[in-house]
């Protein structure tokens, strides 16, 4: 919250220099306190931040300066410093002067929390914070030109597990995650008439400095050995990326064209040292594995694009898009692996190490073509035919100590055709589309060679107070290979009614159906005996939702409710989420706030992860103008 305090101080420092009667000021602030009750804290299987405490629910301060000669026109500060009804905290500050400049600073914190010992053996548990800072300054004081300066920082920090397999067992390694991505960008825009040119140059660094937490980790018990693992790590993976991009646009009366090119030049340096010490509890012996990596990689990316749209006739628009993208990585990595067998003594009985110089060259070139025809003879209806092709080539070349280990050079292609139409009625519209996609798989991808799907949707204003909308989508992924028997079928139906009951009161109800059927034959050998088995996954989710709002005298309220039930065979569960909030106007500037949330999660197969939460928020809102 340091940045919020700094900005409020800055705010307080700037404003006294202006005569108050010349400024239009508005302040809107809500404070509150959250009470929480839960059956099974602190385990929550969702993305909500359910926690107790005082909070700044909402802050908005806006100052408008009508004085044309002043150095600023609008200044605003907005913040949510602890909105418990959904995750995340945010501060945003902006300063603008029309025709001169604009400046925006934003910082947001989002929590990424997950805790489930049963899911992937607990290896995905995490409690991370994503801190995102961005600043943008745009100077528009020169005719036709805009100068741009941007800064961005994203940090992922906190604790998070990583799965690891050794000795026929799986360990959930505990890491203190520390990954950051920092970006500086300078840019220039030139805009005259129908012509526009945008130039950008960015300098990006990505640092990965995650460390194992102190302590030992036990295996999940899949092995006959009973082991305790003590890991440690040092070193970093550092990447520097230079990104240059240019974009040219021309917007004519009946056509529009854009040409884009960007070149990204990345260098990755890896000097990680990773030590894993295993103690075999049954035998009292210890074995260490020390891995030392030293190497670097060049990873240039070239990206070019062309888009042209032409209003060929009053009723016909023809569009063509082309995108060419090429990624190469050229890696030389030395890895030294040392195994130390200690037995039951404190000094190693056997030490064996080997050092390998691994070379790896990766090259993925992809060319996309897109062509579409939109025919609209009348305002009431239009049809669109779209054709897309992805044409790619993948090359691998691996070597160990100078000897080539494997080479891959394969082409892949995806073709997609889609036909869509829309018909507008006097009080609504109907849309429909159908597509087919054929996939000539790249190497390693051995399943799924065609996708098909369709969708139909509509909206209708039944009367002045009732409207209805509906969408139905179906998509399948299949494979012609009879031994695979791959089938993936997804269905979505959503339909809702909205009612305007009286002035100031509205209500909506809806139903959602989401189904997924997946089946696939597996082909593998076990003890050199071919084995065939089938894997299947099935979900059948039905959701009901309702929402409403009302205003009556001094009361303003909102309610929303959602219920989901998955009766599929693979992961059946049910989930409730209901929120009611109201605001009471105490005086012209003072309001009382009350919110209630009920959240409930139940899995059918086991009640280990089930929980429910009741959350109450009380607060005061002060509006000053």
């Amino acid at each position, binding site marked *: 919250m340091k940045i919020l305090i700094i900005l409020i101080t800055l705010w307080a420092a700037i404003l006294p220099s202006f005569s108050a009667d010349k400024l239009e000021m508005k302040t809107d602030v809500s404070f509150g306190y959250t009470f929480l009750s839960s059956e099974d804290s602190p385990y929550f299987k969702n*993305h909500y931040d359910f926690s107790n405490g005082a909070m700044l629910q*909402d802050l908005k301060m806006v100052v408008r300066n009508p004085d044309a000669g002043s150095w600023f026109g609008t200044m605003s500060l*907005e913040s*949510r410093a602890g*909105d418990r009804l959904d995750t*995340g905290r*945010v501060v945003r500050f902006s300063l603008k002067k029309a*025709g001169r400049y604009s400046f925006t600073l934003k910082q947001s914190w989002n929590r990424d929390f997950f805790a489930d010992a049963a899911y*992937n053996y607990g*290896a995905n548990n995490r409690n991370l914070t994503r801190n995102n800072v961005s600043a943008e300054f745009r100077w528009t004081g020169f005719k036709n030109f805009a100068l741009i300066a941007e800064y*961005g920082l*994203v940090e*992922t920090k906190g604790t998070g597990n*990583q799965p690891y397999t050794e000795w026929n067992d799986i360990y959930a390694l505990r890491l203190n995650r520390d*990954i950051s*991505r920092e970006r500086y960008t300078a840019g220039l825009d030139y805009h005259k008439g129908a012509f526009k040119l945008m130039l950008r140059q960015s300098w990006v660094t*990505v640092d990965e400095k995650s460390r194992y937490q102190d302590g030992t980790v036990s295996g999940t018990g*899949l092995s006959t050995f009973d082991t305790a693992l003590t890991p440690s790590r040092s070193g970093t*993976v550092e990447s520097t990326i230079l990104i240059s991009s240019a974009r040219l646009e021309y*917007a004519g009366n009946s056509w*529009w064209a854009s040409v884009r090119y960007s070149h990204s030049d990345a260098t*990755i340096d*890896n000097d*990680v040292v990773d030590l894993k010490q295993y103690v075999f509890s049954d035998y009292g012996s210890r074995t260490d594995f020390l891995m030392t*990596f030293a190497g670097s990689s060049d*990873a240039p990316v070239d990206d070019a*694009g062309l888009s042209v*749209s032409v*209003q060929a006739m009053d009723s016909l628009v023809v569009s063509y*898009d082309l995108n060419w993208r090429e*990624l190469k*990585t050229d890696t030389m*990595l030395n890895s030294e692996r040392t195994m130390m067998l200690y037995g039951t003594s404190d000094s190693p009985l056997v030490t064996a190490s080997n050092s390998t110089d691994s070379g*790896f060259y990766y090259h*993925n070139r*992809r060319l996309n073509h897109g062509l579409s025809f*939109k025919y609209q003879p009348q305002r009431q209806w239009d049809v669109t035919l779209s054709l897309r092709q992805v044409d790619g080539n993948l090359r691998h070349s*691996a070597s160990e100590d100078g000897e080539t280990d494997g080479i891959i050079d394969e082409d892949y292609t*995806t073709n997609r055709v889609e036909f869509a139409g829309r018909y507008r009625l006097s009080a609504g519209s109907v849309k429909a589309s159908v597509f087919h996609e054929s996939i000539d*798989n*790249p190497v390693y*991808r051995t*399943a799924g060679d065609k996708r098909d799907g369709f969708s139909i*949707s509509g909206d209708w204003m039944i009367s002045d107070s009732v409207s209805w909308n509906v*969408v139905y989508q179906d998509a399948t992924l299949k*494979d012609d290979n009879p031994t695979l028997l791959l089938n993936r079928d997804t269905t*979505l139906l959503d339909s809702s009614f909205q009612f305007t009951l009286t002035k100031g009161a509205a209500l909506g109800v809806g139903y959602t159906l*989401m189904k*997924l059927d997946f089946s*696939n034959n597996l*082909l*593998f050998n*076990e003890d050199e005996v071919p084995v065939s088995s089938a894997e299947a996954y099935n*979900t059948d989710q039905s*959701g009901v939702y309702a929402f409403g709002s009302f205003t009556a005298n001094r009361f*303003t309220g909102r309610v929303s409710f959602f219920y989901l039930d*998955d009766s599929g065979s693979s*992961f059946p569960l049910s*989930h409730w*989420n209901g929120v009611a909030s109201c605001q009471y106007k105490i005086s012209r500037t003072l309001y009382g706030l009350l919110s209630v949330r009920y959240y409930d999660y139940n899995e059918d197969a086991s009640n280990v992860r089930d929980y429910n939460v009741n959350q109450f928020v009380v607060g005061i809102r002060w509006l000053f103008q």
Partner: protein
Amino acid sequence: MKARLCFSFLFAVMVCVALSVPVLGNVGDDSCLECHDGVQAAIARTPHVAANKVSCEACHGVGDAHADDPSVDNIRSFRRSSSKQVMATCTKCHTDKHALMSSHLSNGRACLECHSLGHSSTFTENGKRPERASLKDVSANLCTRCHAGEKAKMNRPFHHPSDDFDNVCLSCHNPHETRAELLRKAVDQKCAICHPEAGGPFMYVHLGTQNRGCSECHDPHGSTNPNLLNRSSTRFLCLSCHSDTPDFHNLADPKYRQCTSCHSAIHGSNTSNLFME
């Protein structure tokens, strides 16, 4: 003499024609506000003000006739305008937008599907939220009014942070340039903005992230599965593409049932071309 007579005759004709044609002219904002006084306070909060050289008639056309006969038929009203008519007006100033850049700009009422009329800044939540860019709604409701399928997904237990402060959709999508966005399928590049641990760059790249991007395995709009995955278990995901796993991967054995237990760096690795770290 004849020439003089001809000139006089032509001059007389021109004067008669000029006098017979009503001359249309701008009446100025003050004349408009005499009747439409309710918009004055709202328009002051938008960029559509005289200080930015925007007058009522810049959008609604000359108001002379309308001032004489206040009917909606003799002034440019946007309530029943087509997308072309709306775009023609808005792009006079907002020249960086073009109807052919995005399907959003050529359907319905174009700009006015999402932005309120230039002088009616809509305050949402009973005036709590600011009138950012004159949007009808600053939350994701702006998009999910039409994209109902995405709204259904956002109601699932796992979804991206979404509240009334910001429109979460705009974190990833640019509604003014849908065509370029869909073609490039640069989904992985968008995700890396907030997820640097998965965005790379990597020495060893997973091809799965290169074509359809992260959405090959994750559903960014919402999921009932942790990590926004399309399946409750990773093996169902991996098998969608990799059906012929090497022989020793006996999926009946518990330790092979979660592929990422070994292939833990599945987004990309800096130590292993098999994504095992």
